[in-house]
């Protein structure tokens, strides 16, 4: 019953968003039912649809978790985008520098690697690099907030742009292969590649990009749950978010929690780099993120900042993303940009929870959710 109550509202928000989205589709001259059918059909076919849906879900599970952890501490991490860029670059950098890859960059002088590590060492190191750099990038706004009271929303936005600038500089001037017209790093060591699920799951073709990072995302959901609700650290983070003055009274160092929560959040966001670099592109690819950081906000909100909710909300958005591709090809007027529109509307509705209280509450539909 409690679960049902928790579910009622997000489901209502999604349905409302689909209705509004449908109206838009209809206004621009397509049949909404046909378009939605096309999307769902494409996202749920086996194996391609589902394989891609899971692949698309992976990064936004991580960013959704990232936003949720920060949110539980009362912080809005708008900076997952910057955190995942720096982290992705870091994981590529480790996979190049310690993976025995010689880079001939812009200067034309080959730069030698530091080591040529085998996969067993290299992959964990590359993953650790993603988490550490993501965490560090997020800890900066956390520290700025704890130390100076600088609002994390503004600082994380600024840090996003700074991240993009620095990483694109490094890519363009130091790690791009000379003559490569695309803004991307040199390919990483093959030892750093992580396996696609299709390579060991029977029936799933190995051409589908969903990889081990998806399994890591599931593990992350479980770990975040345990961390938040079953450890003293999570208790302290949540207490800080619920009432910082009471937390202080309970002997909790509120400032430290702010930095810690941001760091954990950034580490999770950084895991996106593992999916993108080690699992898919096998190089750092400039501006690869399809607004994952912002989608993470939608996912976290829709998932009620709970790991299980985040997981399912991410699947939903991934389905939309996958479903957007045939929309481009087969519908007359609607493009896959509909996905962004739906995302935006979902966030608006989820944020305006009172809207459902007000209008649906009157009909007794959501009355119970008031506790």
């Amino acid at each position, binding site marked *: 019953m409690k679960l049902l109550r928790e579910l009622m509202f997000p489901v209502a928000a999604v349905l409302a968003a689909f209705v509004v989205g449908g109206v838009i589709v209809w206004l*621009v001259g397509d049949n909404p039912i046909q378009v939605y059918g096309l999307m769902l059909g494409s996202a749920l076919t086996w194996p391609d649809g589902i394989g891609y849906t899971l692949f698309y879900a992976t990064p936004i599970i991580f960013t959704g978790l990232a936003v949720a952890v920060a949110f539980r501490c009362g912080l809005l991490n708008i900076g997952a985008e910057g955190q995942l860029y720096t982290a992705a670059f870091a994981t590529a950098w480790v996979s190049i520098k310690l993976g025995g890859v010689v880079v001939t960059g812009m200067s034309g002088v080959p730069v030698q690697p530091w080591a040529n590590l085998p996969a067993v060492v290299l992959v964990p190191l590359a993953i650790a690099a993603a988490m550490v750099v993501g965490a560090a990038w997020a800890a900066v706004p956390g520290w700025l907030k704890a130390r100076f009271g600088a609002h994390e929303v503004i600082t994380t936005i*600024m840090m996003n*742009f*700074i991240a993009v600038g620095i990483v694109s500089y490094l890519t363009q001037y130091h790690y791009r292969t000379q003559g490569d017209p695309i803004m991307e790093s040199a390919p990483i060591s093959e030892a750093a590649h992580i396996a696609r699920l299709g390579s060991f799951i029977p029936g799933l073709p190995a051409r589908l990009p969903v990889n081990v990072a998806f399994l890591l995302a599931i593990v992350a959901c479980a770990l975040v749950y345990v961390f938040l609700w079953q450890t003293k650290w999570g208790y302290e983070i949540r207490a800080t978010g619920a009432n910082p003055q009471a937390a202080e009274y309970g002997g909790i160092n509120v400032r430290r929690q702010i930095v810690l929560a941001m760091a954990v959040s950034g580490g999770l966001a950084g895991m996106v780099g593992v999916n993108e670099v080690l699992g898919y592109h096998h190089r750092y690819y400039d501006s690869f993120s399809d607004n994952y950081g912002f989608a993470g906000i*939608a996912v976290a909100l829709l998932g009620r900042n709970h790991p299980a909710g985040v997981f399912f909300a991410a699947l939903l958005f991934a389905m939309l993303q996958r479903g957007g591709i045939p929309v481009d090809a087969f519908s007359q007027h*609607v493009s896959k940009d509909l996905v*962004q529109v739906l995302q935006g509307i979902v966030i*608006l509705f989820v944020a305006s929870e009172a809207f459902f209280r007000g209008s649906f509450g009157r009909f007794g539909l959501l009355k119970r959710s008031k506790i």
Partner: protein
Amino acid sequence: MNELFNLNLLFSAIRLATPLILAALGGMFSERSGVINIALEGLMLAGAFTAASMTYYAGSPWVGLFAAILAGAALALVHAVACIRYKADQVVSGTAINILLTGVPALLSGAFFLSSGSTPQIPKEHLIPYTPIVVAFTLVPLTWYVLNRTPFGLRLRAVGENPEAADAAGVSVRGMRYTAVLLSGALAGVGGAYLSIGQSSLFTRNMTSGRGFIALAALIFGKWRPVQTMFACLLFGFTEAVAIQLQGVRFGGEEIPNQFIQIIPYVLTIVVLAGFIGQSRAPRALGIPYQKER
């Protein structure tokens, strides 16, 4: 070296600062009333797209400009209703609008112009390359006057600092905030319009490329005050102008990385927020929905 820093650079800085000033002044109204507006980016996109399409259809930039104002205000109304009526988290609502507006123009241009994200070219005689500049720089003293010398400004500031006090004095907190957010949408809409029918001649996908956020940064850098904010916009416009000029320029065989100049506004804003250069104090009630009955 010298030929880089010439009059051209100054004009280019002014041109680049114009959309920032318009959006930042818009953001100022909203934020001084207590409503965070990180939706400036989306509002500018709405203005830019609407201005380009309507100018194309109507053949008149004035129709386009007017439509951009309406579009900005209409979109801001969504933000206002979410934040004021339904007490949504203002940052989240703003983010939603930004995400929405990465999709809507592309969706509409796909439907109307059968292109993926841009509008058709507008003939040169239908562009307004100068008017918005004049408007922006006129609005700065005007905004200062409105904020500091009129009943509207007094009420706006009171609502942003202490809404309860304003309410007790008979000022409608909601009314002020709705007005302020709508104004911010209208101004950001003009800022966006200048991008598509002033600086260039069509709308392209994501053509604001973060200017809404730079405007927000300028607003904070300018401590939520009109004149300081204008100077912040000029500074940020200048850095952008320098970045453009330096593209491909070499000093002693070394190319100057553009990225470092581009991130200057963001670094400066963080520095200011951290209190390293004076204090930037936000309106006290910023971001807090006004709740009367507890």
